């Protein structure tokens, strides 16, 4: 069913003070192109006023219809067709307001006319001060004022309701309507009491939860306090029973008695220790004495044994010595005999030599006499040299050879040695007082000391004689001394020196002069060639002697020679005899010496043995002189017995002392003391604790903690139950609300579907491949292009306007299909559209104009110039009667 505006006439309406009319509006597209400020918008406003503004109202909107500053009555008259039937409405506003509606069935005026219009066009009475487009119904949506389409607004409730109501047949469902709203409102209210808008618990639910939490916390605290009190009770009970046990223990005098006994034991132990000390000392004393006596006995035994041994040794020495003494005496006799024989042989030898020397001298003298003459001659020359040599020679001549000197030294040492031995072994006697009548060896004995080396007879008065025999060693030493002295004297004689010392000095001087002499001697040597005849030996001395002696020398041929050979033979015989005697003598001396040597260690041993024997004897005597010795054996037996007795006593004392270990006893006492101290300490602590706990119980126990805890627990349980109920209630309400909301959305979508379907038809041309998303109130929410959902607010103003128009067109189509009276009026539309879109939109509008009347009010002549349609003008020229 279509609504077609046929004619509009107005006067005193805003800028149209004079009567003015638009006529000849066609069924299809009508385009009114006028410049700005010519009243296009007023035309739309006049149409709205004609239908929707009550004639009797004097509201702000109605007042605005009067031309500015004029107190006149705006008048509007509209002629229109609905479903092919002609209608008209004539309305006068503000002053003497009136309305008259004429239709096929006749004429209505006043309120009836208003109601007729509402019924006819499906709108409600607008009681707002200015305007409520929602009350205008479908036409409020489809008659689009300037810029109103720029917002893609949702259709008003009336539109929706009318759409929904008319869609019943199509979608087969109906809205809950009033029942739904009531139920929903109550459910929402109940929901709000339990949940926040964002679905968090609040109100009763939050309170219940809070109550539960508070109750649980309180119960926990109460329970903890009660538990603490109960702990105090148990602790007190336990402390008390411990104290009882402890007191019983303390009352028990076992320890005290034990301690007393131990203290007594300590005394016993102390005296036992003291006794042990004494016993030990006693034992040591007695044992020491016994030991001393035993030692004395042992020492005596040892001394006796030693004495026996030394005595045996001394005896043995004596025997050995006596054997040797006999042999020594024999040897001494032999030595003396040999000595005598030797002396005789020597005397004989010396005499023979004297004889030989005389003979030789005689022979010599003859030869010397012959040669003396020659010698005297050489001598003369020598004298001069001799003088030069004299000083050196004097020294040289006094010297002796090294070998002689060595021999002299050896002899000298032998003499010294013999003398020392003689000294050691000789017997010294000294006579003091008058020596008258006393002879020694037949000679008078002078006063003073005499040294005797052999058996000496001293004649005393009255025919008595004292025979002194020095030791045998002295005799042999004397013999050796005599022999050495003789040899030395011989040698000294031979060397021409008085004693050994002179010989030594001479040797030394000659050695020093030797060098000088050698030089002179070379010269002398030539002069002093030897002359065997004169027995002149080489050397100046010989010559000098020769010459000096020449005065006594007989002349040559006057001396009778003697038998030299015979003399020599005699000398040799005498020499051999003497040598043999000397050898025998030496052997005898040697034998004697050997015996004496054998005797010496024996003598020493004898002396030592004698000494040892003396010592041993003295020791034995000493020991036997000891005070205890006399009673030694008895004393020793007694001491041993006493030591044994004391040992027993000591052992006894030791046993007693060990039986009472004082340290162990003291440890035991310490343990008992420590136990008592600990028990007392524990007791004090327990008493303190008990007092404390009793205090706690007294203060806490009277507070009714158990009852409070039980009450708190039950409160917590009750709160839990209450919270559970509230939760259940909340969940129920939530589910109910959500379900209602879901049902509403689903139902809404049922109605959105057809609208979207119709809009899509147009939009597909404008935005190909694009989906439209409508909210349940038919508001266009977004478009989906290439899976991207764009909210409407983000679209360009042009697109928003285009979509707004197309949505309106879709609603209009639907209403049209349902036989509702619709028409589309667009005031200054598509101002933001580009040319292509504008063409497309005009094409769509042109297409729509085939189904419904479309009136375009625009100032843009060029934009719509090419569009086919009925063109109308607002110029007064078009005014008709």
């Amino acid at each position, binding site marked *: 069913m279509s609504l077609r505006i046929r004619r509009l006439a107005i006067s005193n309406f805003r800028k149209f003070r004079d009567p003015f009319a638009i006529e000849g509006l066609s069924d299809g597209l009508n385009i009114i192109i006028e410049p700005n400020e010519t009243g296009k918008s007023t035309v739309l406003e006049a149409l709205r006023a004609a239908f929707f503004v009550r004639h009797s109202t004097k509201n702000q909107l109605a007042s605005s219809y009067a031309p500015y500053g004029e107190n006149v009555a705006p008048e509007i008259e509209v002629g229109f067709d609905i479903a092919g039937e002609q209608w008209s409405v004539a309305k006068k506003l503000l002053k003497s307001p009136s309305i008259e509606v004429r239709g096929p069935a006749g004429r209505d005026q006043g309120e009836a006319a208003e109601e007729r219009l509402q019924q006819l066009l499906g709108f409600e009475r607008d009681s707002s001060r200015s305007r409520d487009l929602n009350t205008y119904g479908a036409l409020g949506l489809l008659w689009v004022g300037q810029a109103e389409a720029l917002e893609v607004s949702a259709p008003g409730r009336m539109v929706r309701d009318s759409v929904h109501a008319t869609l019943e047949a199509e979608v087969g469902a*109906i809205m809950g309507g009033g*029942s739904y709203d*009531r139920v929903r409102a*109550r459910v929402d209210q109940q929901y709000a009491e339990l949940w926040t808008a964002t679905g968090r618990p609040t109100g009763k639910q939050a309170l219940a939860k809070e109550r539960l939490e508070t109750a649980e916390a309180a119960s926990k605290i109460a329970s903890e306090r009660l538990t603490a009190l109960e702990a105090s009770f148990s602790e007190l009970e336990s402390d008390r029973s411990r104290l009882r046990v402890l007191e019983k223990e303390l009352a028990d005098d076992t320890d005290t008695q034990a301690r007393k006994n131990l203290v007594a034991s300590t005394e016993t132990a102390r005296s036992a220790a003291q006794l042990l000390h004494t016993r030990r000392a006693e034992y040591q004393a007695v044992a020491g004495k016994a030991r001393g006596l035993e030692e004395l006995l042992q020492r005596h035994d040892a001394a006796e044994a030693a004495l026996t041994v030394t005595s045996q040794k001394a005896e043995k020495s004596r025997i050995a010595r006596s054997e040797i003494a006999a042999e020594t005496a024999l040897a001494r006799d032999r030595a003396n005999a040999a000595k005598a024989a030797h002396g005789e042989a020597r005397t004989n030898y010396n005499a023979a030599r004297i004889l030989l020397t005389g003979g030789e001298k005689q022979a010599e003298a003859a030869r010397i006499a012959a040669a003396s003459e020659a010698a005297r001659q050489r001598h003369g020359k020598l004298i001069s040299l001799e003088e030069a040599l004299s000083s050196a020679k004097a020294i040289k001549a006094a010297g002796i050879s090294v070998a002689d000197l060595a021999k002299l030294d050896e002899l000298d040492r032998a003499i010294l040695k013999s003398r020392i031995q003689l000294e050691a072994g000789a017997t010294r006697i000294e006579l003091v007082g008058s020596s008258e009548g006393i002879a020694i060896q037949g000679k008078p004995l002078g006063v003073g000391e005499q040294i005797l080396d052999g058996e000496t007879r001293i004649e005393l008065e009255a025919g008595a004689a004292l025979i002194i025999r020095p030791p045998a060693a002295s005799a042999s030493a004397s013999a050796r001394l005599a022999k050495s002295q003789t040899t030395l004297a011989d040698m000294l004689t031979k060397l021409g020196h008085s004693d050994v010392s002179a010989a030594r000095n001479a040797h030394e001087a000659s050695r020093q002069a030797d060098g000088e002499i050698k030089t002179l001697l070379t010269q002398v040597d030539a002069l002093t060639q030897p002359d065997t005849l004169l027995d002149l030996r080489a050397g100046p001395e010989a010559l000098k002697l020769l010459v000096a002696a020449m005065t006594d020398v007989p002349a040559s041929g006057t001396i009778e020679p003697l038998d030299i050979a015979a003399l020599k033979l005699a000398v040799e015989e005498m020499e051999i005899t003497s040598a043999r005697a000397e050898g025998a003598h030496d052997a005898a001396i040697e034998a004697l010496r050997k015996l004496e040597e054998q005797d010496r260690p024996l003598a020493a041993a004898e002396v030592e043995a004698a000494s040892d024997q003396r010592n041993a004897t003295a020791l034995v005597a000493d020991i036997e002189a000891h005070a205890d010795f006399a009673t030694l054996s008895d004393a020793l037996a007694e001491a041993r017995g006493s030591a044994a007795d004391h040992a027993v006593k000591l052992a006894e004392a030791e046993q007693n002392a060990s039986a009472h270990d004082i340290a162990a006893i003291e440890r035991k006492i310490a343990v008992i003391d420590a136990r008592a101290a600990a028990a007392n300490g524990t007791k004090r602590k327990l008493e303190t604790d008990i007092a404390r706990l009793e205090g706690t119980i007294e203060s806490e*126990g009277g507070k009714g903690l158990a009852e409070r805890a039980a009450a708190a627990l039950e409160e917590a349980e009750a709160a839990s139950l209450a919270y559970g109920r509230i939760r259940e209630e909340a*969940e129920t309400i939530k*589910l109910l609300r959500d379900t*209602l909301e*879901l049902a509403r959305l689903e139902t809404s979508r049922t109605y959105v579907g057809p609208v979207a379907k119709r809009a899509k038809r147009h939009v597909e041309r404008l935005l190909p491949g694009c989906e439209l998303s409508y909210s349940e109130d038919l508001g266009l929410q977004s478009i989906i292009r290439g899976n991207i959902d764009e909210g409407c607010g983000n679209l360009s103003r042009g697109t928003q306007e285009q979509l707004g128009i197309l949505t309106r067109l879709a609603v209009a189509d639907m209403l049209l299909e349902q036989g509702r009276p619709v028409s589309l009026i667009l005031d200054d539309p598509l101002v933001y559209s580009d040319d292509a879109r504008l063409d497309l939109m005009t094409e769509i509008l042109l297409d729509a104009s085939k189904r419904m009347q479309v009136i375009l009010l625009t100032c843009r002549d060029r934009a719509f110039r090419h569009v086919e349609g009925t063109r109308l003008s607002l110029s007064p020229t078009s005014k008709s009667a």
Partner: protein
Amino acid sequence: MRFIHTADWQLGKPFGRFEPDVRAALTDARFDAIDAIGKAAAENGAGHVLVAGDVFDTEGPEDRTIVQAVSRMARHGCRWWLLPGNHDYARNGGLWDRVIGKAAPNITVLRDPMPVEIDSGIWILPAPLTHRHNLDDPTSAFDAMETPGAKLRIGLAHGSIRDFGSRGEANNQIAPDRAKVSGLDYLALGDWHGTLEVDSRTWYAGTPETDRFQRDAPGQILLVDVETGRLPTVTPLRTGRFQWLKRDWRVNDFAAFEAERQTLWNEIEPSATLLQLAIAGVTSLSERIRVLEILEADVGHQLRYLEARTDDLVAQPSEEDMQVLAVEGVLGSAAQKLNALRESGSADAAIARRALERLFVEFARGDAV
């Protein structure tokens, strides 16, 4: 010899699950029971009241509870003999010290297991409990109790009779033949909250004021007449103000519910009744809603307390129920969704059932307006 035997006063029991006004009434009723006992003693000429344990609900009651108890007892002429039970066991520095600190001359606390001659030749043999859980038979000491010149030996103990059954408390078990074994003329027991005759000389007095939904009978005390050589005569006397009732109703329509309610109403004094009601059955949704409405708006308000369990009253939305809503568009759609969820047996089914009920309630209420 005539005396009152009572027990299990449970003074100071919190009743925390009840709303404050109910809680206050229940608490007061327990104290009032003391007065009822005192009056009963006076009316029946009983000079002694033997309380067999659990005078107090906890070992640590509020001071107010103690003072209330003592002052109520003090104003009656009889003598009160109080035995510590498992709830109010005796210990040093505990509850009974506080009671004695406030006690009146006519109150004696039997804290020690020592026989007491309460009248010439009348001996009480008490078995006080000293712990919450006593493993031994507390009355075993009766055998050794000397009661010289006893005309009557009356045992006073708290605990369950051994092999009494699983419903009694398991601890403090008392030999069932204690009265005989220990030569008692009467054994006054406490702990079991209902009156019970164990044998002709052994009785549980039960609580004088019921404190839980366990048995329908209101609280009682026992008036005991006992003479030497005769079996005692025991007469229960009602002292309880409140009746704690448990009811299970099977209703399949509103009429059946109404019938049950009427029957109950004929039996009880609603304002002195606490009812634990369980309703089971299958009804239409609208009938269930009516039942719930009646319970909430009428029964609950008439009774002192109502605890109704209606989960087992299964509401099947009838065709009619659904049709009423179906014409309502969105509401009908929502109802169908909730019904589907309800029938799905999923976790939300119970909530869905309630939500559906609520939808009907709100819709009906809307109708009414």
